[in-house]
């Protein structure tokens, strides 16, 4: 019964989707076909592609959009991840993960040594990714995720290791604070939140893009520590 009703409802939703696609041209492609990239090529991000390189000196236009034009979204996004980490902690507060560490099988020497060897390399890759976020594909979120995977590896490979939650929390807070403060400096200096107030340098150089790399570093640290915190919370006792 439930299945039939669901299918019926979904069928209508599907018809709705079909209805959406029919008719007027859709998406950037549709707009190009119908020559409807209206209003000085502002729509469909045309303007970011054409002027973004000059405005922020940031080779990766997506990064430029994420951190400058739509940087405010990113602030919210970082906040949401922060909330998820905190909420996870709040929900699981006082809970002890399944088996106690004593009962768990000790990791073999090869495994734990291998993990320890790999860990700095992973860190390095992560840091590389978020430092070069404005030049190449990647950025704070991706780099942070890679860093967190390093911590995950430690958690899985060397079961006895506990992460220092105070340090993680501090990194989380301070990097978040750094993001907001960087944005607020823009407000103080140029009257606009998130203003790219630093000299933007030369395109394709490591030191280019003004505050964009700085923010991405903050985000990288924040995402890394948050995801690690989540891993930590899911695997151990939550305090």
């Amino acid at each position: 019964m439930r299945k039939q009703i669901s299918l019926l409802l979904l069928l209508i939703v599907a018809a709705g989707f079909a209805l959406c696609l029919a008719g007027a041209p859709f998406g950037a492609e549709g707009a190009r076909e119908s020559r409807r990239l209206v209003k000085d090529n502002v729509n469909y991000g045309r303007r970011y592609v054409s002027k973004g390189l000059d405005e922020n000196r940031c080779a990766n236009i997506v990064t430029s959009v994420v951190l400058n034009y739509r940087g405010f979204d990113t602030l919210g996004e970082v906040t949401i991840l922060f909330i998820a980490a905190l909420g996870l902690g709040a929900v699981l507060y006082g809970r002890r993960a399944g088996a106690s560490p004593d009962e768990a099988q000790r990791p073999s020497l090869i495994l734990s040594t291998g993990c320890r060897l790999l860990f700095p390399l992973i860190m390095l890759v992560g840091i590389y990714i978020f430092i070069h976020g404005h030049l190449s594909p990647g950025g704070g979120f991706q780099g942070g995720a890679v860093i967190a995977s390093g911590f995950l590896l430690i958690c899985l490979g060397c079961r006895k290791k506990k992460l220092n939650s105070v340090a993680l929390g501090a990194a989380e807070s301070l990097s978040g604070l750094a993001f907001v403060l960087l944005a607020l400096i823009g407000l103080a200096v140029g009257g606009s939140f998130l203003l790219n107030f630093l000299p933007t340098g030369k395109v394709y150089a490591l030191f280019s893009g003004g505050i964009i790399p700085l923010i991405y570093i903050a985000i990288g640290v924040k995402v890394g520590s948050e995801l690690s915190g989540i891993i930590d919370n899911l695997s151990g006792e939550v305090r």
Partner: protein
Amino acid sequence: MSAQGILITAFAGAGLSYALGLTSARLREVFAIVVSVLLVCLIAITHGQGAEHVYYPDFLGLDLVLRMDALAWFFAITVSMVGCLSVIFSLHYVRGKEKENFYYFALLLVNAAMLGIVLSGDLLSFFIFWEIMSWAAFLLISYKRGRALDAGLKYVIMSILGSCAMLLALLYLYANYNTLVISDLAQQIRSAAGGFPLWVMLAFALGFGIKCALIPLHTWLPDAHSEAPSPFSAVLSGILIKMGIYGFILVMYGVVGLKLLLEVGAPWLHFHTVLCWLGAITILIPTFIALLQDDAKRLLAWSSIGQIGYIMLAIGVATSLGLAGALFHTLNHAVFKALLFLAVGAVEYKTGGVRDLNRLGGLIRRMPVTFACALIGGLGLIGVPLTSGFVSKWLIYKTLITEGHPFLALAALVGTWGAILYVYKLLHNMFLGQLPEKYANLEAAPFSMQLPLMICGFIIVLFGILPGIPLSVIGGIVGTLGFEPVTATLTGFGPQIGPLNTLNLCAAFAGVLLVIVAFRGIAARPKPVSQDDSYAAGAAAPAGKYHHTVRFYDPLERMTGGYLRDWVDQFYLSAAGKAKGVFNGVRRIYTGDVRTYVMYIVALLTFLIFAHTAGWL
């Protein structure tokens, strides 16, 4: 003293009495009485003044206006008078009970709100004060707990229903005439083309009808009146339900005006005719239900509904005499119903809460003053000549007959017979017959309880003998509402209305009295005989109560009891039960299964898409 000053005094008095009560109970009592008496005086000295002024500009875009005119003054003095008496009566009644502070606060608040209602110069402030009165009254009705809680809820639900209707109606007026100030509104409505819409009138009637317990909207009243504390029952029955009457008069004659009013409704059935007939029904049925009541306050409550019927009947006739009769009867009913409720309250107070007529009796020996006053009140209720009730009923009969409404007049007459019967039952079962042993040492009610009774009794007799005093005011009001003014002499009416001279009545009564006294002088003196002689045939009198009445009108009850149940109430109760069932059924849509909830979300989306493709949206 302006209307504003009066209201400030009233509301500040309510608040201050609460504040004072936190420090000293005695201080609060004194203060409450001082405020009440002060209000009576303040209103009394404003007699004859007419004023209208804005007291709160731009409340939600509307000016709130207070106004003092003859009609407002008339109701204001009635309200403050009865309010004052009930406060005095409360002194002993609530002393030592819990939540005294709350009691005084709510009582004074109700009184203040009622003053606000009658002094309002616009319908918005009318409505605001109306609502304050409603919820404050709810708090007081619930005061005694137990069954009072259900009574309170019933009252307040109906009252909210009524005020919703009223809100719709008055905002309809605002939307169409862009003002709610009564004088402007009246002018605009009268000068506007076209009639007055029936549904607005009906919505007002629903609001007012519920408050003044017009059948079939009366069902809250018997419960609320009987379960409220007695001094507040006096307020409820004496003046609170009269606010409904005031509303009717205000809207029908003050706002809509006689000319338009006569055309409201279908050509073959006018609104005011329906009101008349509802009034007649409201006289007949409750009067006979009152006969069957064993609870003294319940009996009085039903009697109140019956008396409201007279007033509504008289309002609906839409004649000058009828309106005068309605206004005078409003005043009278306020006084004698307050008296009767207070008298019952005094008995209740002394006997420790007994109101069951089957368990009382013979109290005349212990509480003679209470009895005498109750007797006057009862006579006034019946409408015996030389009481004020006679004059007002006379006016109503007179207009019914001259306007050619024989059936309505008959209904009114039959209602009076019923009144005689239930007043007799009430007085007899409480005061006459044998005194139960446990009350043998009962003391008379304290003076603070007797004083209001005596004042009421005095007013009844005074206005009965000199009806010209209130009628001079009433006559003027009738004139301002677009009728021919009613002119009255001090003791009755001139020939143009119909000869009524209370002096003649006095003389007749004096003559009859003289004859009786004379016959008593001639006849052999009655010899007091011990009760034992007549009832126990010389044997020792049994210890229990043997001269008493239970189920006073039992034969009548057996005959009519099946029919005289409160059908309407039962209908409402079953409807409420059904509604509860429906509510519980609606609740089931929240099944607790989150997948179903997700389905609701998708269903709404689907509906929107479907409705769009179908072209509905």
